[in-house]
C-alpha cells in the first residue's frame, strides 16, 4: 500500500457494552497501546449514523485501518462492510459481556478481557495490508469440456448458451458416448410410462452447428498446466498431431465403463452367448429396432427373458463393485418393456433384491407391471451354459430353477476417472477406503490419466470413494480439490441420464463462475471473493516442500530450482501452506504469521502470582468460532481467562504461534478445528487433520520448555457445539489450576 497507514478505533456502547465495560479505559488502551490516531465511541455504532461516522473518517481523514470494537465479526457484516480498508472486528459482545456474568465480582475480569481484545484488535489490524487481488490473474474465459457423451455435450451447449466459448474433446471418433448406444432411454417427463427417444442425434447436431463450440474427436488431453483463467492444454489426436489450446476452466465429463461382465461367469456370462449385459441388450434392441428381439446364439425369437439386478455390484466379492449404480433398476424395467412392447406374449421377469426406482421411477415401475413384466424378489445363484437359472425366491422362500431364452445382467458403472493420485503417491489419501478403485483399475479407461495435470500432486482429480471424482461435501457438490476443474456425470457419481444432464449443467455453471472469479483475481468457494493471495520470501525458503505437499488444492508446484511456485488462481486461501512453513516465509497480505502472532503477544500477561491465567484459543472461523458465538448468544458462561483468535483453518496454524504463546506465558493453548477422518468436515479438506499431526509433534517443544504436554490441546468442534466449547474452556482453566501457572510470565 502506497499511502501510509492510518489507524482508527471505534468503540460501540450499545447492546449493554457501556453498562458492563469502562469505555473510557478501552479508548485509552486503543489510543496509548494500540496507537490509534483516531478513537471514537458511539451509542449505536451499527446504525446509519455510526457507520456514517466511520465512512466520514475513511473518506475525510484517510483512515485505512480500523478497529471496530463492538459485536462479533459474524454480526452486522453488511453494516461494517468497507472496501479498501483493513478491518478488525473486536468482539466485545458475544465474546465478552455475553459470556461473562453480569456481577460486580465479575466486573474486573470482564474488563480485562475487553482490554485485551482491544489491544489484540489494534495489534492485528496494523499488521494487515489491504489485499490487491491476484496480479497474475488469467482472463481466458473459454471452457474446456473433456468427454463428448451426453454429460459433456450438455455442459458444452449450456455454457455456449450462456455466451461462453467451448472446447469439446472426445477420445473416440464420434460424439454421443454411451447414450448413442441406447435404443431408448428412461423417460424424464410426465407420464413416465413409456421408454423415450434419446434425441442424442439432435444434440450432436446442435453441438456441431454451434459456432461457439469447437470439437476435437479422436483426441486426448496429454498435458494440462496453469490455473483457472489460464490453463494450457495439449490435445493430441490419434492421427498424431498435438494442439496447444488455452482455456479458463475445465469440465471433466469422462463418463463410465460398464463393469466387465466376463468376471461374472457364475451368471453365465461367457458360458452362454445368450447371457448379455445391459449394453449388450441395447445392441440387440437397436438391431431389432422395435421388432421382436432375437437371441445371439441362434437368432431365435426371445420368448422369455430374465433380468438379473445387482450382478457384480452391491457385492462384497473381491474385484466386484460394492456400490449401487442407481440407474440399473429403471434400465432393466425399460429393457423389459422393449420385449413387452414388441410382443406382449413374451415373459419378462426382473429378479431384484431392492427395486430402486426413486421419484417418478415409481410410475415407470407400475407401467411395466401393467405391461405384464413380473418382478420377483430374490437372489440369483447361478446361470448354467444351457441357460438354467437357479435363484432363491425370498418371498416364497423357495429355491427355483427356470430356463429363459435370454438372461440380462445389470452390471454397474465404473468411472473413467483416470489415475488415483492419492494411491499413486502425491497427496496423502484422505478419501477414505478406496476398495474398488484399486480393484477396477485397468477396467476400461480407469488408470489412464484423463487430464495429465502437471500438478505437483498428481495427474488427475483426486478420487473420493470407489474411484469416483465426487465432491466430499453434501452442501457443495461441486467443491473440487482442483480449483477450476469440475467433474460431472457418471465419473463423479453413479447416475442416470436425467441426473447427468442436471449435473453437467451445474458443472458448466461452476466452470463459468471459476473463469469470472479468476479474471478478477478472486478466490473461489469457500472464501469466495477473497482478494488476498499467498506470497513467500524466496531468500528464506529451505525448499522443504511441506507447502507443496500439504496444499489441499494442489495449488503449489515446484519450479525448476525446486522452489515452491504458487499458482494463485488455484489457491483457496486456507493458509495451510503458511501453517506448514517451518521458516515462516509464506504469508497473505491480510493474514500472516505476524497478524496472529502480534495479537497473541499483545495480550497483557499478568504475573505468575496474579491467579489470572491466560488461555489462548485458536478457533476455526467456520465452525469453532461460530460455536463460541452461539455460546455467547445463549449466554453460556465460560472462563474469563480465555483469549480467542479466529483462524481461517487449523491448517494455517503455524507451530510458532503455539511456542510463542507458551514462551510469552500462556498457561494453555487450545486449537479448535473441524472434524477430521473419513467423514471430515474441514472445508479445506485436511487442515484440521494436518494441525493434529503438527501438534502431536509440539510435545517435544513443550518438553524442552519443560511444560506439561496437556497444556496444549487440539479439539474437533462442530458448529453446534456451543455448550461444549464453553465446557472445554472451563476444563482448561481447571487443568491450569491443577498443574499450576506457567513459569514463563515475565
Amino acid at each position, binding site marked *: 500500500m502506497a499511502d501510509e497507514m492510518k489507524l482508527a478505533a471505534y468503540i460501540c456502547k*450499545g447492546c449493554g457494552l457501556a453498562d458492563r465495560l469502562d469505555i473510557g479505559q478501552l479508548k485509552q488502551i486503543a489510543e496509548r497501546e494500540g496507537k490509534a490516531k483516531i478513537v471514537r465511541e458511539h451509542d449505536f455504532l451499527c446504525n446509519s449514523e455510526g457507520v456514517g461516522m466511520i465512512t466520514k473518517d475513511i473518506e475525510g481523514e484517510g483512515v485505512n485501518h480500523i478497529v471496530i470494537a463492538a459485536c462479533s465479526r459474524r454480526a*452486522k457484516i453488511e453494516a461494517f462492510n468497507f472496501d479498501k480498508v483493513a478491518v478488525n472486528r473486536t468482539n466485545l459482545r458475544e465474546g465478552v459481556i455475553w459470556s461473562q456474568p453480569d456481577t460486580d465480582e465479575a466486573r474486573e475480569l470482564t474488563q480485562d478481557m475487553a482490554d485485551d481484545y482491544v489491544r489484540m484488535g489494534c495489534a492485528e489490524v496494523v499488521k494487515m495490508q489491504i489485499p490487491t487481488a491476484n496480479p497474475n490473474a488469467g482472463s481466458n474465459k473459454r471452457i474446456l469440456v473433456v468427454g463428448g457423451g451426453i454429460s459433456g455435450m450438455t455442459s458444452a451447449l*449450456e455454457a455456449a448458451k450462456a455466451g461462453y466459448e467451448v472446447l469439446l474433446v472426445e477420445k473416440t471418433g464420434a460424439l454421443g458416448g454411451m447414450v448413442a448406444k441406447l435404443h431408448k432411454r428412461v423417460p424424464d417427463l*410426465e407420464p413416465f410410462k413409456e421408454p423415450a427417444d434419446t434425441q442424442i442425434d439432435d444434440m450432436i447436431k446442435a453441438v456441431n452447428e454451434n459456432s461457439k463450440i469447437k470439437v476435437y474427436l479422436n483426441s486426448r488431453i496429454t498435458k494440462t498446466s496453469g490455473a483457472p483463467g489460464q490453463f494450457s492444454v495439449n490435445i493430441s489426436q490419434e492421427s498424431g498431431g498435438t494442439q496447444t489450446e488455452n482455456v479458463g476452466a475445465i469440465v471433466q465429463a469422462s463418463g463410465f465403463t460398464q463393469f466387465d461382465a466376463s468376471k461374472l461367469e457364475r451368471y453365465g456370462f461367457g458360458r452362454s452367448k445368450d447371457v448379455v449385459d445391459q449394453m449388450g441388450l441395447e445392441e440387440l434392441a437397436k438391431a431389432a429396432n422395435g421388432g421382436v428381439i432375437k437371441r445371439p446364439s441362434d437368432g431365435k425369437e426371445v420368448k422369455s427373458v430374465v433380468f438379473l439386478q445387482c450382478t457384480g455390484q452391491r457385492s462384497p466379492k473381491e474385484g466386484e463393485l460394492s*456400490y449401487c449404480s442407481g440407474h440399473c433398476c429403471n434400465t432393466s424395467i425399460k429393457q423389459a418393456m422393449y420385449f413387452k412392447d414388441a410382443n406382449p406374449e413374451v415373459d419378462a421377469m426382473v429378479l431384484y433384491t431392492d427395486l430402486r426406482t426413486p421419484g417418478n421411477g415409481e410410475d415407470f415401475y407400475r407401467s411395466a407391471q401393467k405391461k405384464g413384466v413380473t418382478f420377483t424378489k430374490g437372489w440369483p445363484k447361478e446361470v448354467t451354459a444351457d441357460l438354467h437359472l437357479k435363484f432363491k425366491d425370498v418371498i416364497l422362500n423357495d429355491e427355483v430353477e427356470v430356463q429363459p431364452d435370454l438372461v440380462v445382467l445389470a452390471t454397474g458403472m465404473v468411472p473413467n476417472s483416470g489415475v488415483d493420485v492419492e494411491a499413486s503417491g502425491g497427496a496423502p489419501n484422505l478419501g477414505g477406503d478406496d476398495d474398488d478403485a484399486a480393484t477396477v483399475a485397468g477396467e476400461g479407461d480407469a488408470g489412464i490419466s484423463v487430464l495429465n495435470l502437471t500438478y505437483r500432486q498428481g495427474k488427475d482429480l483426486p478420487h473420493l470413494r470407489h474411484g469416483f471424482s465426487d465432491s466430499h461435501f453434501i452442501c457443495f457438490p461441486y467443491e473440487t480439490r482442483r480449483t477450476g476443474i469440475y467433474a460431472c456425470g457418471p465419473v463423479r457419481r*453413479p447416475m442416470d441420464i436425467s441426473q447427468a444432464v442436471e449435473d453437467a449443467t451445474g458443472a458448466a*455453471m461452476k466452470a463459468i463462475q471459476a473463469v469470472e472469479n479468476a479474471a478478477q483475481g478472486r478466490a473461489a*468457494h469457500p472464501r*469466495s471473493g477473497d482478494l488476498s493471495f499467498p506470497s513467500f520470501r524466496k531468500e528464506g525458503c529451505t525448499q522443504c516442500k511441506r507447502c507443496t505437499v500439504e496444499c489441499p488444492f494442489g495449488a503449489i508446484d515446484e519450479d525448476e530450482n525446486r522452489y515452491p511456485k504458487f499458482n494463485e488462481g488455484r489457491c483457496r486461501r486456507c493458509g495451510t501452506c503458511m501453517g506448514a512453513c517451518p521458516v515462516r516465509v509464506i504469508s497473505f497480505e491480510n493474514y500472516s504469521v505476524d497478524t496472529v502472532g502480534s495479537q497473541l503477544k499483545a495480550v497483557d500477561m499478568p504475573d505468575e502470582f496474579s491467579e489470572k491465567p491466560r488461555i489462548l484459543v485458536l478457533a476455526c472461523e*467456520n465452525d469453532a468460532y461460530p460455536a463460541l458465538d452461539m455460546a455467547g448468544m445463549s449466554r453460556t458462561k465460560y472462563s474469563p481467562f480465555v483469549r480467542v483468535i479466529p483462524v481461517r483453518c487449523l491448517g494455517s496454524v503455524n507451530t510458532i504461534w503455539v511456542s510463542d504463546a507458551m514462551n510469552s506465558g500462556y498457561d494453555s493453548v487450545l486449537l479448535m478445528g473441524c472434524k477430521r477422518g473419513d467423514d471430515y468436515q474441514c472445508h479445506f479438506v485436511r487442515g484440521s487433520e494436518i494441525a493434529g499431526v503438527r501438534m502431536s509433534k509440539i510435545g517435544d517443544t513443550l518438553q524442552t520448555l519443560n511444560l506439561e504436554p496437556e497444556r496444549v490441546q487440539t479439539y474437533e468442534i462442530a458448529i453446534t457445539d456451543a455448550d461444549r466449547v464453553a465446557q472445554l474452556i472451563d476444563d482448561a482453566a481447571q487443568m491450569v489450576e491443577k498443574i499450576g501457572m506457567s513459569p514463563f510470565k515475565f
Partner: protein
Amino acid sequence: MTDVVATNETILVVGGGISGMTAAIEAAECGKNVVLIEKSPALGGRVSQLYKYFPKLCIPTCGLEINVRRLRFNKRIRVLTMAQVSAITGDTGNYTATIKITPRYVNENCTACGACADAVSAEVDNAFNYNMNKTKAVFLPFNMAYPRRYVIDPSIVGTPEGEAAKAACKYDAVDLSMKEETLELKVGAIIWATGWQPYDAAKIQPYGYDRFANVITSVEFERMMDKAGPTGGKILRPSDNKEAKNIAFIQCAGSRDRNHLTHCSRICCMASLKQSTYVGEQYGDDEAAKASIYYIDIRAIDRFEDFYKKVQEDPKVSFIKSKVANITENQENRNPILHGVNTEGYHRYDNEHDLVVLAIGMQPSADITQVTSGVHTDASGFIQVHADNGGIFGAGCASNALDVNRAVQNATAAALRAIQVVNRVSGAEA
C-alpha cells in the same frame, strides 16, 4: 417502504432454503444481480431444521454458515424475508413479479440483543420445531438465524405485550406500525426454489398419527435430536416424556402409495438409516436401545449403499420387509403396537415399540400454477425441465423429490439456466 432495485437483468430466486440460497449465491458470484425472497423470517429452510445430514452425519448449520457468509459479503444479492410471490406476469427476460411482504415489526436497527424478548411473556407455537413446543411471541427464529433479527408475532401487536417489547428496545428497532407491503419487481428470470413439505401424516389413517401420541414423523424426530430443540436433544415420548429406546421406523409413510403420494420420495430410506444411528448415539450400548426399520425396498442408491451396509452391521438395527398394516395402542403404557406381516417368507408380527417414526413423504410446498400459468409440473406438482417454462426454472425440491446434495446440484444448474436468460437480455441491450 422497502425499496428494491431490479431490472430485467435481475434474477429472482423464490425460496431461501439451501436450494434457493445456492442458486442465488452461485448466480451472484458470476456477477449477476439477484433478489432472494423467503416467506419465513429467516433463511435456511428445511435443512436448518435437520440435526445431521446423511451419509456423513455432518451438521447442516456448517454449510449454512458458509453460504450465509458468501451471501452477506456479496453486494449483488438482496434478501427479502417474510415475502411471498403472489403473481408472475410477462415473459422470458421480462417478468413482473408481485411480492407481498408481511410485517416483521422489527427493522434493520435490531442488534439481536434480545431485550425485547426478555420484556414479554406471551408465547406462541414454535413453527421451527413443528409446533412441538412454544416460543416467546418475540423471538429469534433459531440460533443461527439470518437475518439475525428478532420477529414479533402479530398476535401481540396492539397489546400491552407488544408495547412492552417496543419500550424495551433502545435502538428504535421495534416498529409496531409496520403494514403489509406489496412490491412489483421487474426481473429477467425466475428460479422457483420453494422446497418441500412433509405429507400430512394424519391422512395415513392406519398409523393413527392423529390418535396416538407416540407416533411422530421423521421431521419431528430430527428436531428432538437438536440440543436447542423441543426436547433438548433427548428422544422423549410425547405421551409421558419418558426416553424412547425401542424405536420403529416406518418407510413409505405416504410415498409410493396410490392413496397418498404416488411418487417415491427418495430421501426417506436414507433418512431412516441415518436416524437409526441416532439411537446408538443417544444410548450407547444400552441393551434396550433398538431400531426396527419396516420397509418395502431399501433405496440406498449409489455410494449411499456404503452407509446402508454400515447400518446393517449395527446389532441395534433390524430390518423387516413389510409395509406395516396398522398401528394400535397399548392402553396401559400408550406404546404403539405395529401389526403386519414380514413378507420374506410370511411371518406375522404384532410388535410393541416405545415410539414410532413415520418416514414421511415429500411434496412440493408451494404450487407455482397458483401464481402463473404455462409452467409444466408433473402429477405430483414438481416443476419439470421444459422448454415451455420460458425463463422460470424449478430448483431443488420444487423440481423433484431430492436429497440435499442433489437439490444443491439441481439449484446450481437452475442458476446457469437463469444466467443464460439474463445474458441474452444484456446481450440484446448491449
